[in-house]
């Protein structure tokens, strides 16, 4: 836990030396909002899926109960594993928490803003994935190794699309800072660069589904051999570690989803209250949309997933071409 605090709050430690100045409180507030609200998205997705299939479904707060239940349990470690296996969930959770600090959430400004922070944003997700892949290999199970190799393969494809989307965004807003990119001139950007933003939105949504192991790419609901990408990597984790991983993936969905909402719903010029309302509404619609996608699609066959991601790549490429052509 000390590790987590250390990873999560480096800026707090730095700033505590100068007294609790402007930096500390926004960071804590931001982290608090992310930590409290992120499992709710999974709850909304689950409820949507249940409603569309005519069931009552688990309560909206079920992800909180799940995580709480896991925190009450102890960890079980295999004798073949090393410290890597125990560190990975913490690194994973810490990386996604830090990435959330770069993202403006409705009326809350991003606490950490510096030039070129999109590279850090993408790199933190790379770090989280790297830690999980190492932990999966560390178990020595061939089954988990297979899942790790698949995760690594698909992430090669999603990261290219993510960066192409960043290129589109930075060309449209002429900024290279994440929170300025998504808010810079978003209200006017729909008139100037609507076509490119549509292409970006579609390709980024596919990346969002792939990164969060949602349905056309991976099935988060089962832990059997059918889901051989993300879920298989966490089979050996238990107790606190599994809770960290579940919490981490909920936060990842929240942060990556809020990027999409921030881009597609221009609310920068409104009052903070209205911004927050727009943002919450956008997040609700997004998780509802993911639930609808999951209800009406089956998981794709494994060899068709690269095809889907290459499709996303082509769309992002066209978006870049359009932006370059329009010179927006």
């Amino acid at each position, binding site marked *: 836990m000390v590790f987590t605090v250390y990873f999560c709050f480096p800026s707090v430690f730095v700033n505590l030396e100068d007294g609790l100045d402007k930096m500390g409180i926004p960071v804590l507030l931001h982290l608090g909002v992310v930590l409290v609200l992120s499992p709710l998205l999974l709850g909304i997705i689950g409820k949507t899926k249940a409603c569309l299939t005519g069931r009552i479904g688990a309560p909206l707060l079920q992800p909180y109960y799940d995580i709480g239940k896991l925190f009450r349990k102890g960890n079980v470690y295999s004798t073949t594993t090393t410290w890597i296996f125990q560190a990975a969930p913490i690194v994973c959770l810490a990386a996604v928490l830090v990435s959330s600090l770069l993202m403006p959430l409705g009326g809350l400004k991003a606490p950490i803003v510096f030039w070129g922070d999109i590279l850090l944003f993408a790199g933190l997700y790379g770090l989280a994935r790297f830690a999980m892949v190492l932990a999966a290999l560390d178990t020595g199970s061939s089954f988990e190794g297979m899942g790790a190799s698949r995760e690594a393969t698909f992430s090669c494809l999603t990261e290219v699309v993510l960066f192409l989307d960043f290129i589109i965004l930075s060309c449209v807003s002429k900024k290279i800072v994440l929170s300025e990119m998504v808010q810079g001139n978003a209200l006017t950007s729909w008139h100037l660069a609507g076509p490119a933003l549509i292409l970006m939105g579609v390709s980024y949504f596919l990346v969002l589904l792939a990164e969060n192991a949602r349905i056309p790419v991976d099935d988060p609901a089962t832990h059997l051999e059918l889901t051989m990408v993300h879920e298989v990597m966490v089979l050996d984790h238990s107790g606190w570690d599994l809770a960290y991983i579940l919490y981490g993936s909920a936060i990842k969905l929240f942060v990556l989803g809020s990027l999409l909402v921030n881009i597609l719903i221009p609310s920068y010029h409104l009052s903070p209250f209205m911004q927050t309302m727009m943002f919450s509404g956008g997040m609700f619609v997004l998780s509802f949309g993911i639930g609808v996608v999951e209800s009406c699609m089956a998981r794709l066959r494994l060899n068709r997933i690269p095809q889907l991601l*290459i499709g996303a790549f*082509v769309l992002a490429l066209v978006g870049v071409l359009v932006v370059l052509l329009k010179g927006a």
Partner: protein
Amino acid sequence: MWLEVVLIIIVFLSVAILGNSRLKTIIQLFALQSVVLSTTPLLIYPSFHAIIIAIVIAILKGVLMPVLLFWAIRHVSIRREVQPLIGYATTLLLGGVLIGVAFLISSKLDLPDKGISNLLVPCAFSVIMIGFLLLVSRFKAITQIIGYLVMENGIFLFALLLLEKTPLLVEMGILLDIFVGVLVMGIVVNHINQEFGSASTINLINLRE
């Protein structure tokens, strides 16, 4: 701005057609593309002429041709393109390259500027290229028909530059030709199927007495 959004949706739909293997979905996507396409004359040059073209295209390409193609696949009972010449992922990548080429070519073209949108020509070229790619990379006759029709949609987009100058009669003649072409191809698909027991055009590479 709406014109550009519509153009991008048309390119998006042709990429989606390129990446799909189910014939039913491909035909539905084509119908959607044609309906979206039919709004472009109205957005560029709103007039009586444009309204008639829009209605005719929406009915002919959005309803009649898909119905005909659905009839054809029901008759020959094929569901999906089993063995494309090039894999789907490669085709999609090639499609991306071709779209890039289309944008490059159209930036070199010295067309008289009509002040419509500088996305119109690149998008038209992209759709034509993707239609070509569908034509050459698939074996099933139905997919090839769709490729031809997607290409024709691209040519129509390109011809929008000359919308004011083209007499209505010529446009109608072109549309009638395409319709008859698709009708004939639908019947040909049926005959290929009766002759060889499958609708794959790979059976047509040998000459026989």
